[in-house]
């Protein structure tokens, strides 16, 4: 039972993560793939942050009379990872815009067909 209570939130996060990954792998629309990628990454962030949580701890800002803080290191890592994620998203979207201009489509199958035909 304690296994269930101790880990259930990780399982929820893993489910969300896999939903995102499924969108990336299975969907053919380029924009939707980016959304999927973002969901995947955001879920990884939640995984990291939930491991930083400490029962009874507060936000990691030093105040008088507080002794128990959440672990600041995962927060720092995820701040960086969020930035990396948005940078990737911006670049991916720029590529989609260019692909749409070159192929007049954002569907993977159609683009693939056009590439084969010439």
């Amino acid at each position, binding site marked *: 039972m304690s296994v269930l209570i101790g880990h259930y939130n990780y399982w929820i996060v893993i489910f969300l993560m896999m939903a995102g990954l499924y969108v990336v792998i299975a969907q053919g629309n380029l924009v939707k793939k980016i959304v999927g990628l973002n969901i995947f990454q955001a879920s990884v962030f939640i995984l990291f942050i939930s491991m930083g949580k400490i029962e009874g701890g507060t*936000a990691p*800002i030093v105040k008088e009379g507080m002794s128990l803080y959440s672990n600041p290191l995962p927060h720092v890592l995820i*701040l960086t990872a969020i*930035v990396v994620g948005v940078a990737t998203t*911006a670049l991916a*979207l*720029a590529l989609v*815009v260019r692909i749409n201009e070159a192929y007049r489509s954002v569907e993977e199958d159609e683009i693939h067909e056009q590439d084969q035909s010439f």
Partner: protein
Amino acid sequence: MRPPIQPHNLVLRIAAKMLIPPILMFALYVQFHGETGPGGGFQAGVIFAAAFILYALVFGIGLARAVATERLLRVLASLGMLLYITVGLASLFSGANFLDYDVLAQERMEGQHLGIFLTELSIGMTVAAVMIMIFFAFAERGVRP
């Protein structure tokens, strides 16, 4: 992007005029209060960029472009990065390791504060400039020449 809002909508213009200064103030607050509260250069940069994008959406891209020319944004983004590296090199030339803030001032704590202040500033600069740059890149694609 096709402008979704009429550029001459009076209510929007006034609302935007009322909103933008507080947002900019908030960005500055977040920028300089990162040491004591939540926030810091990155969040401040994003908020600053958001205020600017609001301006561009309401008053038209042309006006916004006149303020933030491509050259200015490029220079700002590059300077932000250069500033960060310069802070690192400054400690290197003061005889410590790269990015060691201790030696930046007479006293160790002051050095740390100065270092954090400067690096946060450089993050804010680069992030704001890059976000606005990306916004314009997308926005101007939509306007067919």
